[in-house]
Each structure stands twice: as C-alpha cells, then as structure tokens.
C-alpha cells in the first residue's frame, strides 16, 4: 500500500511525476508539431480551393475593415487575381462561427465554407451540411440581392429552426464582402 506521507517523499514523488510527464509531453509536442501544421495547411488549402475557382498559388494578406482585421488568401492564376478567400468570423448561436468566403474581384460570392463552428447539432450545425442552404451562396451577388435572411427582409433562405445561425452566417458573408471592397485591386 501507499507509503507514509512526509514532506520529503511528497515533494519528491509529485515533482518527479510532473517532470517526467512534462518531458513526455514536450517530446510528443515536438514529434506531432509537423503533422499538425501540415494538417492545418491542408485544411486551409482545401477550404480556399472549395470556395474559389482553380488557382495557381495563393498569398496570405490582411485588410482592415470596420475596425477589424480580416485575413484573406489572394488566389492568382496566370498572373491575374481571380478571387479572394476571406476568413470571416462572427458570433453564432453556440459560439464563434468561422467561415471562408470566396469572392471574385467583381464582388460576387463564388462559394462559402465553414471553417469551424459550435452550433447546435441537428439545428445550426446544418449550416455545414444542408445542401439547399449551402448552395444558395454560389454566385450570390450582393449588388442585386440583400444579404440578410428572408425574415429580416433579405434574400437568404434560413435553415429551418436556426434563424440565429443563418443570420450570423449572412453577417459573416456580408463582412467578407465589405472587406473585399476595401482591398486594393491591382
């Protein structure tokens, strides 16, 4: 059974345990850092690829809009800018809702994808799976359509029973559209 406690063996055992555990974790961190970074890059490239037409290369830049910094990937094909994939984050129903919004230089939404969300499974989480909801963003032209849900007088079809998530989604797209307007198109 357990040894009798005294200051010396308590400090010794707890100290040694912590030291060994930190060593193990430090090693594991070093070993997994590369694959974790690679997975993150692969995920970003996939997200950029899914919201913009085929591109040759991307560059990571940022722009200030409404006092917030928006990071975006500028996609270039044959020396010509074909679109911007903007990372846009808003507060959804269950927490931050992060989108990747692909916008062509003329300001039309090419496509969107969800980077991360904390919405209710079966309700708001459908923003990531509901085909009808997701398809409406393809080719959404903010100059002729209003980027709010129909309940609020706009042109966005909300997900059934998830108005708050749909509103947040539309707001994130709107923010991205606003940010792209401020990008210096060369």
């Amino acid at each position: 059974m357990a040894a009798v406690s005294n200051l010396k063996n308590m400090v010794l055992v707890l100290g040694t345990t912590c030291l060994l555990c930190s060593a193990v974790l430090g090693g594991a961190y070093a070993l997994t850092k590369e694959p974790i970074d690679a997975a993150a890059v692969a995920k970003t490239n996939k997200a950029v690829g899914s919201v913009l037409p085929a591109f040759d290369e991307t560059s990571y830049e940022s722009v200030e809009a409404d006092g917030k910094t928006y990071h975006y990937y500028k996609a270039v094909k044959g020396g010509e800018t074909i679109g911007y994939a903007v990372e846009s984050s808003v507060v959804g129903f269950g927490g931050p809702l992060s989108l990747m919004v692909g916008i062509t230089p003329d300001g039309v939404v090419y496509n969107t994808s969800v980077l991360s969300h904390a919405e209710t499974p079966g309700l708001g989480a459908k923003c990531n799976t509901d085909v009808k909801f997701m398809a409406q963003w393809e080719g959404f032209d903010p100059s002729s359509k209003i980027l709010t849900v129909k309940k609020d007088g706009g042109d966005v079809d909300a997900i059934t029973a998830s108005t708050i998530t749909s509103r947040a989604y539309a707001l994130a797209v709107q923010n991205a559209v606003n940010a792209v307007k401020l990008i210096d198109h060369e």
Partner: protein
Amino acid sequence: MSKNFKLITDGLVKNNPTFVLLLGMCPTLATTTSAVNGLSMGLATLFVLVLSNVVISLIAPVVPDKVHIPVYIVVIATFVTLLQLLMQAFTPAMYETLGLFIPLIVVNCIVLGRAEAFASKNGVLASAFDGIGVGIGFTCSLTVLGLVREILGSGSAFGWNFIGGNDGMLAFVMAPGAFLCLGYLMVLFNKLFKKN
C-alpha cells in the same frame, strides 16, 4: 486467465460505467449525438483508461497517501494531452468533432474512479484488463446511446441515412433527448442484467 476475462465482462455488465456506475455523464450526454461520435469518444476514453490504469498500478506503492490524487491526475492529464496531440496530428477529421470533449476525459470520473478503486490496489496485468473491460463497457454504452439518438434524431445509423432528408426528431439530438434515451436504456439494461 479466467480471472482477467471476468474483469472484462465485469466492466461490460456488472461495473458498466454508464448504465450501472453512472460515471462520466458529461461526455456520455454531450458526445453521443451520433453512433460514430459515441464510438470514437468511447475508444478515446478506453485508450486513456488502459494506459493510466497500467501506470498508476505501477507507481501506486511509492506514492505517498496525501499526494496520490494530484499525482494520479497529472498522469491522467498527460495521457489525455498525448491523445489530443496524436489525434490532432493523425486524425484531424475526428479531432474536429471530438476536440472539445477530449480534454474533458481528464475530469471524467471513470478514469480517476478506476485508478482509485482498482489500479492503486491491484497488479499491472489486472489493472490493464480492468481498464480494457471498463473501457469497452463505456464504448459499447456510448455507441448504443449514440445509435439510438442518431436513429431517432437524424433518421440515420452510423452516418447512413435511411429515411431520406433531414426530418428526424430533433429533440433526440439535443440535451433533453440525451437524458430521455439514457434513462430508458438504463431501465432496459437493469431489467436485462440486474439480479435481484
């Protein structure tokens, strides 16, 4: 061998963590929105349970009584973090669905409970088998609960949609459905296995 085999069946039935011991309710209710989620959470806990049981049964004799809880928690937390890093690196898709709940395995009473009640008093091999038994028990319970909730809530099983469309009973995907399903499964389990 038959003793070790009994440890495994004990974990499945007599000491079933979800339906009999009622431990680890937080991940049980939160992650079982689908059968696959329940299964993955169960397997993640199984991994931590077996390793922490083995290590704790090894170090228990030298750990002074007054600091045994902090020492055990550090060991458990190490394995959980290790698991989190490995999942993040090699199964990013799975990490995305479960990521939020992985750190919660640390405070899962099953893991500390088995360390206290079993691993600290038994040998390495017995502790490993106890970990496997309780872990499998937890995995099965979570998978069954997840499957029932997925069938009722989303109209699919293991991601395979059999009703077409998204018209499940939403309540079962959310917290109230979790409690309802858990309650009825517990009744069923006790009816089937409990000896008076």
